[in-house]
């Protein structure tokens, strides 16, 4: 049995690998109040919670931790989470408690209480800045609680947009991949996967065709560490398709007319005006040929439907703000089988 642990944040994620099988165990790590555990005590606690008294044959960890006492537990020294994600090399957005990672670009430790105005910009309701500041300052002290109310959920989603946008702004080069894996608490645990599609579209603002996968078990950082030390083991897990395909998105900055050929006698026609966001119900694994035409361009592509169908985003510059209308367009739509 091999353990690969993502140590950072409010909840440790333990990837437990037994032969060909694997599962992810989440271990909440409590608050930053007292009493507190030392890092070796915490690691011992995580392992105990994940596998009881069983002795793993190897333990790998990602996290900004360093202590001589850790040699007792670890097969290899702890890896920096950003470094291991970079080495892993999969296109990914990870919004973790301590890091925000976007395709090899990353930021550490954003103080969100100091970014209340930016966060407010992404909220579909009015709120006092002091409430935003207090909410995120309290999360620093009590990172473990999960959002429950609509307001808490939207605050966290708005903060995720700000964090991802910051990475993009810090390293202004275009996203060159045609897909991305979304991971980290606010994304992986989203109440509705369509919310993830909206967060990714708002924050990454891709152009043209783009595919979104979701890491629902938040295993990506732990899998990245595993891949550094046991590449074949990580590949075996990847071969089992551990990520949920949310679906393709097609983004343009103008009005677009689409013909979606599902193999039926007549293709379905769809007109999406500038400023609109539409979810087309293309079922999971269902293939479609799509031809599109705008004032300045035309073309065609093939897509496969995902959990959230096919999303057409013609919001253009309007993508930099939040609207209840767009949220409803995506989040009230029917979802398909994974």
């Amino acid at each position, binding site marked *: 049995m091999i353990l690969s642990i993502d140590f950072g944040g409010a909840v440790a994620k333990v990837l437990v690998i037994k032969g060909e099988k694997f599962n992810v165990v989440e271990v*909440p790590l*409590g*608050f*930053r*109040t*007292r*009493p*507190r*555990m030392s890092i070796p*005590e915490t690691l011992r*606690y995580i392992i105990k*919670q994940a596998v009881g008294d069983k002795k793993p044959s190897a333990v790998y960890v990602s996290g900004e931790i360093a202590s001589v006492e850790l040699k007792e537990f670890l097969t290899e020294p702890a890896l920096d989470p950003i470094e291991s994600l970079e080495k892993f090399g999969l296109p990914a957005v990870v919004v973790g408690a301590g890091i925000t990672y976007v395709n090899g670009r990353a930021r550490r430790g954003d103080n969100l*209480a100091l970014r209340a105005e930016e966060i407010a910009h992404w909220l579909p309701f009015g709120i006092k*800045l*002091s*409430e935003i*500041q*207090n*909410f995120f*300052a*309290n999360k620093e*002290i*009590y990172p*473990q*609680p*999960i959002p*429950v*109310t609509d*307001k*808490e959920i939207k605050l966290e989603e708005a903060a995720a947009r700000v964090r991802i946008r910051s990475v993009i702004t810090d390293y202004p080069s275009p996203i060159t991949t045609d897909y991305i894996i979304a991971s980290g608490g606010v994304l992986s645990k989203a109440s509705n996967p369509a919310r993830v599609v909206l967060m990714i579209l708002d924050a990454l603002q891709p152009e043209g065709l783009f595919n979104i996968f979701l890491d629902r078990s938040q295993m990506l950082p732990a899998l990245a560490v595993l891949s550094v030390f046991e590449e074949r083991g990580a590949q075996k897990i990847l071969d089992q398709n551990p990520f949920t395909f949310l679906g393709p998105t097609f983004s343009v900055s103008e009005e677009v007319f689409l013909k979606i050929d599902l193999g039926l006698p007549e293709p379905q026609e769809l007109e999406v005006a500038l400023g609109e966001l539409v979810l087309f119900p293309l079922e999971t694994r269902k293939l479609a040929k799509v031809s599109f035409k705008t004032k300045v361009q035309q073309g065609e592509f093939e897509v496969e439907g995902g959990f959230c169908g096919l999303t057409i985003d013609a919001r253009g510059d309007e993508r930099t703000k939040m609207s209840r209308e767009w949220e409803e367009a995506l989040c009230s739509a029917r979802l398909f089988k994974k």
Partner: protein
Amino acid sequence: MLCPVIQKIVFNKKAFVERRLGDESRLLVKKGDKVRPFDFVGEIRDTVRQRLTAGVSGEIVKLIPGKAVLVQTSAVIVRGVIGKGEDSEGEIKIAAGDDAPIELSVIDAECAGDILIGGYVPTLEVFKKAEAVGVKGIVCGGTDFACFKKTALSTLLTEGFGRPPLNREVFEFLKRVEGRHVFLSPDQEGLLVAIHLDGEESHRELLEAQPEEVAEVFAELKEGTGVQVFTSENFGQGGKAAKVLKDTVEVLLDGGEKIEVPGRNVGIIK
């Protein structure tokens, strides 16, 4: 269901209080001396002679010649969650109830030298006035993040940001020791209330009130356990676990309301 343990008050048999006089002072005690709160431990010879008291009952365990002494004492430590400002000391003054604001109107010249206790600080003006009249520090349940960032006054928040009430048991304890000379260490997130070794009654009172430090960081949540809630709508409120379900817990809040929250959103109060 395992939940994080939060210990608000700890009895520490071996607490240390440093009494610092500054350069070129003369110490009046030696290692091993037993001292009481009003005994002088040193003096500074300047234009006017200034003397410093021990502040607590205890034993002198270390001397830094010409500068400071370290007194070992027994104390109750009130633990906060975040503090700012320099170490400070003063007399405890209850300035508001456990869930009430410390109002601007209660702060006057008579508060000079005091450590104010109350539910929360509602505005930056309260901090400013407190500083202006010579208040030595504030210990409260919470205040807004922006006020906390801007104030220079020694401050300890016992629960967090916003307007969470100061934990009821902590408040009752501080009420019992109102007027006591205490030591605020924002950096250490603690308020040290030394016991009077020769005052049998207060000694017993403190010992009864306070458990020694717990070792466990997580504990099994059981019905009837005292908890604190950390969802935004009830942030910082205390109560009791009424029913423990698979992933959630029903909490009967101190105010009488019953709510259901995820188990991850509560802490066990020890």
